[in-house]
């Protein structure tokens, strides 16, 4: 029974991808196709959860959808004629020292600054959230790497180094100070 449900679920995912592709090709029935694709995916999710339970069914739906979509894309690969690469030479670029300095500061500084801020938010959550001990800890534990990654992106993508760094340090100081006061 589980195998049958899984096979039907994979078929539904395939139909969903096919309908999405048809909508993507700017077919005039775009909205209907998108709705159909969504319905097919909901059916796939229902089948996976029926076969394996909700907890396992959700990731299975996402993972099989990724594989089905990629197999579909591979089946529609556009082969192009090989091209002869002609060597091109750009005039030598004069790199200022500032650029290297900036790159080094960014590379070295973004991680710790982002870590401090994300840890501050995580600690504040773990201290103040009205949840069970384990829940506060685990959610704070998940928050820290997620915010760390996002904050690193923010600093690295910023033209001005000082502004985001100062902002993140401000977040860190505020959150950690608040947490310490709450605990006391």
């Amino acid at each position, binding site marked *: 029974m589980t195998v049958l449900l899984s096979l039907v679920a994979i078929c539904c995912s395939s139909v969903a991808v096919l309908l999405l592709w048809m909508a993507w090709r700017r077919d005039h029935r775009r909205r209907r196709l998108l709705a159909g694709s969504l319905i097919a995916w909901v059916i796939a999710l229902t089948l996976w959860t029926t076969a394996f*339970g909700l907890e396992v069914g959700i990731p299975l739906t996402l*993972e099989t959808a990724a*594989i089905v979509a990629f197999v579909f894309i591979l089946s529609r690969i556009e*082969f192009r004629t090989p091209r002869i690469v002609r060597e091109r030479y750009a005039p030598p670029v004069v790199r200022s020292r500032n650029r290297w300095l900036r790159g080094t500061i960014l590379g070295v500084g973004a991680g710790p600054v982002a870590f401090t801020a994300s840890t501050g938010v995580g600690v504040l959550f773990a201290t103040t959230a009205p949840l069970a001990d384990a829940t506060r800890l685990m959610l704070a534990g998940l928050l820290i*790497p997620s915010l760390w990654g*996002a904050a690193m*992106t923010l600093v*690295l993508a910023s033209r001005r180094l000082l502004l985001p760094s100062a902002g993140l340090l401000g977040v860190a100081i505020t959150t950690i100070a608040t947490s310490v006061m709450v605990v006391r």
Partner: protein
Amino acid sequence: MTASAMPTRNITRQLLASHSLVGIVFGALIYLICLSGSLAVVADEFEQWERPDAPVVTGAGPALLGLSARNAYSVAKAARLDHAVFLSAPTPEFPRMTALAVDAKGNHREWNLDANGSVVPRAIASWTTFLREHHRTLHVPAPFGIWIVGLIGTSLLASLFSGLLAHRRIIKDAFRLRWGGSKRLANADLHNRIGVWALPFHFIVALTGSLLGLASLIILILAMVAFKGDTNRAVAAIAGAPAIADPRPAPFPNLGAIVRELDRRQPGARVESVQLDDVATRGQQVRLVVAAPGHLTRAEVWSFDGNGRFLGRLGLTDGNVGVRIYGMLVPLHFGTYGGIILKIVYLVLGLGMTTLVATGAQILLARRRDQGRASLRWERVWDGIVWGQPVALLVAALGVLLTAAPALPLYWTVTLAILIASPFVGAIRAVLRIVTAIAAGTLGLLHLAMIRPVSDVGLAIDTMLLVIAAGFLLMIGHRRVRERLPVQPGMAET
């Protein structure tokens, strides 16, 4: 993404710069972790392939578990490693029974157990152990190794955020994969399609990996403030209270009776592992890890005291959100919650993630080339890293198979040799592909010829190695034929 929600070109450029910077700084390390992690998903299968001579145990009832635990404890006591004993029961995917004994200082030793419950020397799978450690710590001593891997996971998360936000044609190109023309375009299409369609998988694996790596550091920091420095309370909140020490002697627990009690409370329960803490003392505790089908955590932990009295469940399947998330981390990261089919899905998606990292740097290098700032040496070095890793892993496996040499020095010797040589070898990619084909084919054939008994898993992996070898040879042959084709009139030059 709608036009109004789309970041401006300037912001996109800055996000791309951020994406590139993370790739340049961490790219090679992310690649090593992704490749070893993809393979580590099937580490149990590799262990059976490497050591098919280890005793096969297909099932363990209460009587066998009780006998095995008692025998394992006797051996552990003789080795003065009797603080805690862990017994892994056989599962359908890994029909082996192992025991791990630990002393109070953390020193440990492992053994195998046969179908009669007798303790036999551990069938050490050197290459598989190397692979697991490579992914877990990059062989850097504790605790720094696991922290570095956690940091790499976080940088992968940052890369996912910046890559997603910088992708302006996320819908426009959602189904396009152009191949064979411009190298940059082909790599960019492959990179973006894998990155977008498998994004939930990448995000989950990067986040769980980051947390698993940095858990000890994060818990320490959180406990410092939120639990006033009481790390034990923080750990107990998640993993359950440890046994209360009472060193007065007590009889060894009747594990058979405990398993029968478990079966009475949950008929048909399958024990996956047994943990005996403070064994043969009055404070001893028995923890049974019981399979929980239909749950991401894969298992529930049942605790009993030394007299077999039920103490409680950890709550991995029905406890509070925090404990349930804790139980999900490892299965979500390694794909251990859905049998061998799901492991294969994880392997494929993991290799997709590895390709994502490999093509990322190739796009940067191709862009430099298109701008007339080709960096030939760096292109070769990156090819050396990408195509050198399969060679290094295969040569390490060959060394273990042929000479029982340790895998780690072999791996690093090959990796460093390739890295040093790569800037000076023009066709480094082609050379490494040929070497990969030869190494994979040789390993598959030698394993088939030398290692007995031949198991289903072993046969499947050997066949896969031969398929990989044939695939690489075909790829090389196809490329050579294509390179000899005359240039057609009107063919664009770039």
